[in-house]
């Protein structure tokens, strides 16, 4: 993460502690909903800082947030999404690439630990790992599932924060249960179908270098955007 983005996020997290419980919940819902948009992370944090100023000053004046923002919080966020600078195709590509690289890398590391490979490595010096259909399919499904969960939570941020069990939460719970069961079944039945063996250092080097590259490119864009704002 860019240093400027990190610094701004830290400042915003500190500011949130000054808000009342209701205002803090409202700010959280708005920021999560904004993450559903095409606005870049830095711009969302800038908006978050400005919204905090509006909501906090209203709080100090003894006014409620709907007197400042109105009752249609979703509509307000959508106006902001349409007014702000949209992410370019290159930025969206970097963001998705980052998620895929980090997600796949993490799942690969988990597989290294739980598949017994480490035991093979330290006891027999075997640096080759089996790649099965189950591993490939479950990895792809887990990445797709994570993106779907992120999309769902950001799109329905306001609906999910309602009192009691909402139909959106029910849909999420049932959907997740079906998805998770399917994942276990796939892993169970397809894990034994071995496709090939790979020297484990090759994917590790690929993950590490592509992670560093995408992170550096992303930070460069964030610094450029932050520089143009300040």
């Amino acid at each position, binding site marked *: 993460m860019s240093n400027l983005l990190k610094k701004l996020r830290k400042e915003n997290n500190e*500011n949130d502690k*000054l808000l009342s419980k209701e205002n803090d919940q409202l700010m959280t819902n708005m920021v999560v909903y904004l993450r559903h948009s095409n606005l870049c992370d830095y711009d969302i944090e800038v*908006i978050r*800082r*400005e*919204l*905090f*100023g*509006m909501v*906090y*000053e*209203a709080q*100090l004046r003894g006014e409620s947030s709907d*007197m*400042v*923002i*109105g009752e249609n919080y979703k509509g*307000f966020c959508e*106006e*902001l999404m*349409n*007014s*702000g*600078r949209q992410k370019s195709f290159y930025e969206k590509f970097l963001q998705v690439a980052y998620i895929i690289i980090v997600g796949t890398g993490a799942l690969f590391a988990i597989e290294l630990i739980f598949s017994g490979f480490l035991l093979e490595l330290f006891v027999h010096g075997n640096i080759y790992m089996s790649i099965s259909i189950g591993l490939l399919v479950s990895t792809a499904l887990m990445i797709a599932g994570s993106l779907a969960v992120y999309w769902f939570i950001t799109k329905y941020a306001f609906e999910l924060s309602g009192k009691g069990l909402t139909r959106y939460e029910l849909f999420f719970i049932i959907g997740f249960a079906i998805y998770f069961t399917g994942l276990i079944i796939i892993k169970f039945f397809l894990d034994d179908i071995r496709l090939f063996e790979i020297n484990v250092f090759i994917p590790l080097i690929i993950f590490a270098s592509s992670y560093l590259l995408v992170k550096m490119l992303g930070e460069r864009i964030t610094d450029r955007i932050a520089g143009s704002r300040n």
Partner: protein
Amino acid sequence: MFDKSQLMRGTLEGCILKVITMKPTYGYEIMEKLVCHGFDDVREGTIYPLLVRLEKKKLITSETKPSPLGPSRKYYTITQNGSEMLNSFTAYWDSISKAVKSIMGSEDE
């Protein structure tokens, strides 16, 4: 029932530019000025997305200054492009408001 939001959206940007022309100002103060001149339904949340849009179009610039109430405030100033936009909005508003008044005031044919 007439949907006034479209009409509001079209005119508020020009009115905000006019308020900012008077002196460097911030969101809440702009809102108070608009309410003072008869925009009863306007809130700070109504104009904030418009300020974001105006800044994106480089019609206004902003500067963050400390505020007596706590968090820093963003003060807006109009740019040269903003002044030109305001002039063309004012000219267009003069001609369209005359045309609307004329039609509304005319008898049925």
